[in-house]
């Protein structure tokens, strides 16, 4: 869906992530690498699309993980070219090793590190604050309040990065990433920068003897950036109604604060500062705040980064003083309440979010993962099921996922559970780990290799749906497709599994539940046999959201017959969203609007009440 006609050529309605991608192309970025993850996933495709539209040679890649993406982008920068790496906040945990060291060693061409945070969190395993990570690494960080600001900051951040030879972070949050605005487009900057890597072993190979000096240089850079006036916070001045009081905000919390003060009739009456670079916080700004105000409220997500730097002097109200909740998103409702309290105004009660309400997410109708999970849980009712990060985490709805920790963790947890039970000397329960194909490439390979090496015994089911479904269907290495859709070199999961030393490797379409259950039992026998080790089953069924698959797979006409005894097994233990309890018949029924005719539910009903005819 393109917005060309209505808007002309000068503006485009862009999502925050697309605006960031456009900003990279306009700023002469020549390489962008990423690993998909909500809320950052749309940044890389946007770079690919705009580079193509502008006829520019930009290398974009979905790397296998964030650490790899970081290092690829870093080297492009070391060759003197502008580079970017984008990821969700927990991706930065994975990339933290190269990230921290690159602050010491620095960069050549501008390097922009985009870490998208998820206060709330809405789609993440933590609500950590990447600005804190930037502070820890001693790297400057920008905090945009809108898609428009995010785009503007990209160019400024790359310039800053080049000027100080330091990586620079852009930290949008979910609300900025997924907001849309009408964004002006500009001509891309054409930088004539041939790749030129200048060798400098004391710097690029810095051994401990050089690091102390590099650390001193880094500290000096940060001091100079904090002293520079370029990124002095903005100010919407008050009219003196609150002479010794001010609000300091950054990121989308600033935008919400603006709207709420407007709604309360207080915009232009109380001083409102917008911090655009939370670290290093401008020195003069810190002094000014301390001298000028008696009371300061800091609104920022999600940790007290600005607040800590303002400590000492004026009374600072924020998360450290419990004036602002220490966890959760700063929604307009929360900000309103905090403002009313801080400004000592009467509290207006906002309508409360109802508890519960709405529908919980579930695997799609016809999803192959559901079939696999159902078979696993039915085969091993007493089993332990470590799992991982992706759509398939939703297997927890039907009790086939017992752990979801971080990328790749399920596999090592399975090994750890095995060693715990084995060392204990008691009976080892069936341990069945599940991992998605993309997650396996990302972090599963070292974990599998280690499990084999340490003689762990468990079943690993690799849920291979041939895509990175959760985040919008990015290609996996097995498809061999590059980020722009051009053919690359496919790498196969089965080859990798064998190379990790696995001797039991079988493949099955989980739609065939009886056959899949048979394989699971065989794998369990293998694990428990004298020569047993890790058994791997590739459960292969393409994602049903893949349009081509949808049109290629067999479609069944499915019906619930009179035999239904309303036991709810198909609803509670299988949970296909196309099945429901009919208020009319008091029996289960199929919703024809949602059913994709996969026919899997036929294997599920204990009384055989669900029947299927091939269409």
């Amino acid at each position: 869906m393109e917005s060309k006609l209505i808007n002309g050529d000068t503006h485009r309605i862009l999502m925050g992530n697309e605006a960031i991608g456009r900003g990279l192309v306009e700023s002469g970025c020549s390489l962008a690498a990423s690993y998909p993850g909500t809320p950052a996933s749309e940044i890389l495709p946007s770079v690919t699309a705009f580079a193509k539209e502008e006829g520019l040679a930009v290398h974009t890649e979905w790397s296998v993980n964030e650490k790899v993406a970081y290092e690829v982008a870093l080297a492009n920068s070391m060759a003197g070219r502008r580079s970017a790496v984008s990821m969700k906040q927990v991706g930065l945990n994975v990339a933290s090793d190269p990230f921290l060291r690159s602050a010491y060693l620095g960069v050549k061409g501008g390097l922009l590190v985009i870490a998208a945070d998820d206060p709330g969190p809405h789609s993440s395993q933590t609500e950590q604050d990447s600005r804190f990570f930037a502070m820890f690494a001693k790297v400057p960080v920008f905090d945009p309040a809108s898609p428009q600001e995010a785009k503007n900051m990209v160019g400024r951040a790359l310039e800053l990065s080049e000027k100080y030879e330091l990586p620079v972070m852009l930290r949008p949050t979910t609300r900025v990433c997924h907001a849309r605005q009408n964004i002006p487009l500009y001509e891309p900057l054409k930088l004539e920068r041939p790749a030129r890597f200048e060798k400098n072993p004391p710097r690029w190979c810095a051994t401990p003897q050089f690091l102390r000096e590099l650390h001193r240089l880094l500290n000096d850079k940060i001091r100079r950036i904090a002293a520079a006036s370029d990124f002095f916070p903005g100010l919407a001045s008050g009219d003196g109604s609150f002479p010794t009081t001010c609000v300091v905000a950054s990121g989308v919390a600033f935008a919400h604060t603006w709207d709420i003060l407007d709604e309360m009739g207080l915009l232009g009456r109380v001083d409102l500062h917008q911090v655009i670079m939370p670290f290093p916080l401008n020195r003069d700004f810190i002094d000014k705040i301390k001298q000028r105000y008696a009371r300061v409220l800091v609104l920022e997500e999600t940790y007290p980064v600005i607040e800590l730097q303002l400590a000492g002097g004026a009374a600072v109200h924020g998360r450290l003083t419990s004036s602002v909740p220490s966890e959760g998103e700063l929604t307009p409702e929360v900000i309103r309440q905090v403002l009313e309290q801080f400004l000592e105004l009467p509290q207006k009660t906002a309508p409360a979010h109802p508890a519960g309400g709405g529908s919980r997410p579930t695997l799609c109708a016809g999803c192959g993962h559901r079939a696999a999970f159902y078979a696993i849980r039915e085969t091993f009712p007493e089993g332990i099921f470590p799992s991982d990060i992706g759509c398939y985490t939703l297997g927890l709805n039907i009790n086939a996922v017992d752990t979801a920790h971080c990328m790749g963790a399920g596999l090592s947890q399975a090994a750890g559970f095995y060693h715990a039970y084995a060392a204990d000397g008691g009976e080892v329960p069936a341990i069945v780990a599940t991992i998605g194909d993309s997650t396996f490439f990302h972090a599963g390979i070292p974990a599998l290799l280690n499990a084999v090496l340490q003689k762990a015994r468990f079943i690993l089911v690799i849920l291979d749906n041939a895509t990175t479904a959760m985040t919008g269907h990015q290609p996996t290495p097995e498809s061999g497709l590059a980020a722009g859709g051009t053919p690359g070199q496919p790498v196969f999961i089965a080859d990798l599994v064998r190379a990790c030393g696995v001797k039991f490797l079988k493949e099955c379409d989980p739609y065939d539940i009886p056959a899949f259950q048979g394989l699971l039992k065989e794998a369990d026998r293998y694990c428990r046999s004298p020569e047993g080790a890790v058994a791997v089953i590739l459960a292969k069924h393409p994602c049903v959201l893949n349009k081509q698959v949808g049109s290629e797979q067999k479609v069944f006409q499915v019906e619930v017959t009179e035999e239904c005894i309303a036991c709810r097994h198909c609803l509670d233990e299988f949970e296909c969203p196309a099945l429901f309890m009919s208020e009319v018949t008091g029996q289960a029924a199929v919703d024809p609007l949602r059913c994709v005719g996969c026919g899997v539910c036929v294997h599920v009903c204990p009384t055989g009440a669900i029947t299927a005819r091939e269409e």
Partner: protein
Amino acid sequence: MKQQIIISGLGGQGALTLTRLLAEAAAALGLDFITSETHGMAQRGGTVISMVKVGPFRGPLIPAGTADVGLFLHRRNLAAHHFYLKPGGVVFINSDIPGDYHNIDASGLALSHGWPPVAANFILLGFAAARKGLFCKVELLAQIISAIMPARFLEMNLSAFRTGVDQAV
């Protein structure tokens, strides 16, 4: 001109499409706007909400109790998202059950025309526009649908939209 609209549905129902159409309409009218939408896990059939703020707003979220209009693609979502509406806010809902709102059986209409379930959102949009619930007029929305929807769905989308308009009288 200021109007705050929430679009509430289940993941996969096409709330994002409506959000983008309304954003385009605001842009065509030269109005400032900012929108917000749900991505990630909740898109797998969970409850999703989009927000469209037309006018000089900065933040993408609509505070509870302040939305002027609610477009509900599923009746189940009323319980979850009705609190966003201000007192006197107008609700347009895809439902065959009448109530304290403007309802249209958009899913039923889509089915009877042989359209896929996602056509229901175009029906609801046409209905809400024709009942003068939105900042933009029926004709502008029809133009925008023609301009930005992919050619292979265009005819169906437009017919669905017109069906909603016709039902509004």
